[in-house]
């Protein structure tokens, strides 16, 4: 790919972000910043119980609070057939409870008042009478004969949601029977939460005169949300405008439709006033899309030399009270079947069962392309257990089993076709950077002195960028994505996409793609997303799909424009199209470079000097259906030291080598890696949304759901290899999620490695100091 000048700043330039100017001046426009004349506020009344029959709701006292305008209950919604709404996973979910509540913090009533203080006061006065029911917390007990039935609304009178399996069971079982070595690990990927710093919220504004509903919404997928509102609410789709303003982080949390949004819309329809609803942090953690909660078992069959023969995976998925996972229709366990990872398994079989419990509904793909994080964690953990069983170096074991670079595109036994990869190269760079051999020596010496140090490796493979449309859809809507580019007469441009940035820097990176393709300086390209009245339809930003889909669409739309530009240039230069050559920013006549027309001159001509037979204007739209997913990968290495007295773990070093194909903006890619690693670090060591026996949520506030500060967060070292995607228009993959997908296993592997000589094979996340201390105590090392 031809590198453009700094002035143009196409691909590969670390261009400073265009969006930053407003954010550093406090001029971002987040949903809570939207302030409309006459706007009123909603506040949710929530259940204190995890499972209880709703006996009565008395709103008399609440209605007397000055400023209260309306109180909506599930019974009210039921009259409009809105008490339930569909989830993104072929299930349904209560908007406001009718009959009973199924998790603590479930939505029970919606209070609307003139200001948020009055709404909060009134919400406290809504009297709800509950009759407690037996609570189901442990997913392992969900299918027991004596388990309480949670979902009385379903035809199936049990708590089972789905069984899903993939792979050749018979062949896999046979391989296990014949194997010299079988290793096994039970690993929990605990329930955690994306917790973007901005919580979810909306402002719903129904204009009774025009019958137009405008909703400012914290949405990663505004177009899909518009369609959902149209289908659920019966509002003609052209009368709904969703605006995703600046989004304060999403990480998957802002993909689903939440009850608060629906209530705000209903309240606005009823009152004819703009209604704002912004959830609190506690509401965010306790009721909106959690992630993970996968209870997994992996077995690897191998020969004595460590060559793997088969992988068998069995998983129990806890979805909470409603299956509100946000994932493609045909994949109830998402892309979990990427669990063979970077390794050449001849056979594999994978099965997942989903169950209901009395917990918040989900689970969403938290900085993850639909359960890839769980899969990557499992296989990277299982490979380490196998290495330990075989007394092999985990690096050697991985190298021995990597899919070799020459074998791409590689078809995995569970059905994926990996587009490209060079796993050995990434591993080598990571080992060289961290100085692996010296670390091994240091570890051996430390062990002699009784000191605990561990090295953890993770050589993950990601799968991102859904579609293709023939396989992937959400609610039937195919997972393409779009871009529309218009070149103005002065050669500047505006483009709009079906995706929506939540901090990823789309206003910069999409502009750089246009700059690369058309030679228009990126600073002259305005990028706009999130307004469904103006942007082309798209599925949104999650699953690292923006660059693979809308990024590709941007390149394709730009290429359409370039073809027309070529015609105009030929006309202007009075030569045939075949006589023209392109360099970024201009067409020139072959062999006569001074005879040239810049893209700006061509754009001007498109409006002022239109060639005969051509339409005026210079614009294009592209709806891009990717032929395959992309498969980013990398090797991460963590080095940890353990304090024997307290169980504290210090991450001394962390090297992340990523390969995401061709890079648009290296600065932004590095920033994504830093952020994702920090989230992975938190998941490995600090975070869990737990529940006690009564279904009370633990870790439901930032007091106990721990977000690392700058002090705990390690210093990150990054490196890259570049293996372009062969099918993507400019060879890019995706990067936002790799660090979150790949890093938890590196951290856990490092801690387990530090303790492996004591016979420790696995510790479940989050690995807290007390868990480590308990092990050390058990082994007689401390206490």
């Amino acid at each position: 790919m031809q590198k453009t000048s700094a002035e143009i700043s196409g691909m590969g330039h670390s261009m400073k972000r265009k969006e930053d100017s407003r954010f550093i001046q406090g001029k971002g426009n987040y949903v809570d910043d939207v302030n409309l004349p006459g706007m009123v506020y909603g506040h949710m009344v929530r259940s204190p119980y995890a499972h209880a029959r709703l006996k009565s709701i008395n709103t008399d006292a609440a209605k007397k609070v000055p400023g209260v305008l309306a109180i909506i209950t599930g019974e009210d919604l039921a009259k409009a057939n809105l008490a339930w709404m569909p989830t993104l996973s072929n299930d349904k979910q209560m908007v406001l409870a009718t009959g009973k509540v199924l998790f603590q913090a479930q939505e029970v009533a919606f209070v609307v008042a003139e200001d948020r203080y009055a709404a909060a006061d009134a919400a406290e006065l809504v009297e709800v009478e509950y009759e407690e029911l037996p609570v189901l917390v442990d997913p392992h007990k969900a299918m027991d004969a004596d388990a309480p039935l949670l979902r009385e609304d379903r035809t199936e009178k049990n708590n089972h949601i789905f069984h899903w399996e993939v792979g050749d069971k018979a062949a896999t079982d046979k391989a296990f029977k014949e194997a010299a070595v079988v290793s096994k690990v039970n690993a929990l990927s605990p329930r955690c939460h994306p917790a973007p710093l901005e919580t979810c919220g909306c402002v719903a504004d129904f204009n009774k005169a025009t019958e137009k509903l405008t909703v400012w919404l914290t949405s990663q997928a505004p177009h899909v949300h518009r369609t959902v509102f149209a289908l659920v609410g019966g509002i003609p789709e052209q009368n709904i405008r969703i605006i995703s303003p600046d989004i304060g982080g999403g990480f998957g949390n802002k993909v689903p439709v939440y009850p608060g949004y629906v209530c705000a819309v209903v309240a606005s329809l009823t009152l004819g006033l703009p209604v704002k609803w912004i959830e609190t942090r506690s509401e965010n953690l306790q009721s909106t899309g959690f992630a993970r909660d996968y209870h997994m078992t992996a077995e690897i069959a191998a020969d004595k030399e460590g060559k793997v023969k088969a992988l068998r995976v069995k998983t129990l998925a806890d979805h909470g009270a409603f299956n509100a996972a946000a994932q493609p229709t045909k994949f109830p366990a998402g892309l979990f079947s990427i669990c063979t990872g970077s390794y050449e398994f001849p056979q594999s079989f994978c099965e997942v069962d989903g169950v209901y419990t009395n917990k918040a509904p989900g689970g969403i793909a938290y900085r993850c392309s639909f359960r890839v994080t769980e899969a990557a964690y499992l296989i990277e953990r299982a490979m380490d257990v196998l290495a330990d069983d075989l007394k092999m170096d985990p690096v050697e074991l991985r190298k021995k089993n990597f899919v070799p670079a020459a074998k791409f595109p590689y078809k995995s036994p569970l059905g994926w076709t990996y587009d490209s990869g060079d796993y050995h190269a990434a591993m080598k760079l990571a080992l060289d950077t961290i100085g692996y051999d010296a670390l091994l020596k240091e570890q051996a010496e430390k062990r002699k002195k009784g000191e605990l140090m561990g090295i953890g490796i993770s050589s993950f493979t990601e799968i991102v960028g859904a579609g293709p449309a023939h396989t992937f859809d959400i609610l039937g809507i195919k997972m393409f994505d779009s871009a529309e580019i218009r070149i103005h007469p002065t050669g500047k441009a505006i483009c709009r996409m079906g995706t929506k940035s939540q901090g990823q820097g789309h206003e910069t990176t999409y502009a750089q793609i246009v700059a690369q393709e058309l030679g228009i300086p990126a600073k002259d390209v305005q990028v706009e997303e999130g307004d469904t009245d103006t942007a082309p339809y798209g599925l949104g930003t999650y699953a690292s799909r923006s660059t693979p889909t809308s990024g590709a669409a941007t390149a394709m739309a730009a290429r359409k424009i370039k073809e027309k530009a070529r015609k105009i240039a030929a006309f202007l230069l009075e030569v045939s199209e075949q006589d023209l050559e392109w360099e970024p920013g201009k067409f020139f006549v072959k062999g006569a470079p001074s005879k040239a027309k810049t893209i700006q001159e061509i754009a001007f001509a498109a409006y002022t000097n239109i060639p005969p037979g051509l339409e005026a204007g210079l614009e294009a739209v592209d709806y891009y259906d990717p032929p395959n997913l992309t498969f980013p990968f990398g090797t991460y290495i963590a080095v940890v030291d353990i304090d024997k007295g307290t169980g504290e773990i210090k991450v001394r070093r962390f090297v992340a080598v990523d390969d995401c194909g061709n890079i648009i903006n290296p600065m932004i890619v590095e920033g994504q890696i830093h952020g994702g690693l920090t989230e992975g670090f938190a998941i490995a060591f600090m975070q869990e949304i737990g529940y006690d026996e009564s279904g009370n949520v633990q870790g439901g506030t930032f007091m106990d759901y721990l977000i690392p500060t700058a002090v705990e967060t390690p210093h990150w070292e990054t490196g890259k290899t570049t293996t372009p995607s062969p099918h993507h228009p400019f060879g890019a993959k995706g990067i936002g999620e790799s660090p979150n997908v790949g890093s938890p296993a590196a951290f856990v592997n490092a801690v387990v490695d530090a303790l492996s000589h004591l016979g420790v094979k696995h510790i479940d996340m989050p690995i807290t100091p007390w868990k480590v201390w308990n092990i050390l105590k058990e082994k007689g090392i401390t206490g």
Partner: protein
Amino acid sequence: MIPPAFEYLRPKTVPEAVALLQQHGDDAKILSGGQSLIPMMKLRLARPSHLIDINRISGLAYIKEDGGFLKIGGLTREAELEGSDVVRAKYPLLLDTATVIADPQVRNLATVGGNLAHGDPANDHPATMLALGVQIVATGAKGARVIAIDDFFVSLFTTSLQHDEILTEIRIPSPPPRSGGAYVKLERKVGDFATAAVAVQLTLDDKGAVQKAGIGLTNVGATPIRAKSAEDALRGKKLDAATIGQAAQLAADAAQPGSDLRGPAEYKKGLIKELTKRALTRAAERAGK
């Protein structure tokens, strides 16, 4: 989250504030730094009818050496401790503590008096003040009285302050030569309450033996705990490994932690043992200098 409504009162003097407390009864609360109270009000765990804001009362914020004490005004902000030359020079235990309370913004408002008067065993100053053997000055309608810190913490969130009294001063005995202290806290992350923490204040004699020891424990019981038997075990002894180990075990025995998200009780006892060793070692190093 939204705090419940209250009447706001802003007295200009301590007697005025005390009179307001008497006038409005048990539902009236003092607003000092507000860094514990306001979060509790936002969660609606506290709903005072009246808030008596003492922040405009002059003369309640100071750090000064006077009459054999370091006197700290009740309204002194935590951040002031960090910035105080005398604290930095002579009260390492206090400095250690002040730097690990909550986070920088909270320390800019939170007050030393409030940290104690809240009666929360998870707060950091209580253990420190127990180790330092301080006196608390409480001012009420009849004037000021002095409460020994050992008599101050009654039960969870309850101190021996009367409802109409305000904590106006903390008096820390000036440490003799060869004194040193240390606060060692294990927290899950910066800004968290301690999983467990140990405050140690030592005075050594000429021969390096312990003349006086104070040990306070954070967040391992319904009240902050003074580990008296551990202190006793140190007196007259040199701080060798055996002595430190014995005191650490006695401190752990004095802890009565519960199990929670920060860890099981047994772990917290183990932590107290380990952190006591570390605090004793650090305090002794500082005392020896």
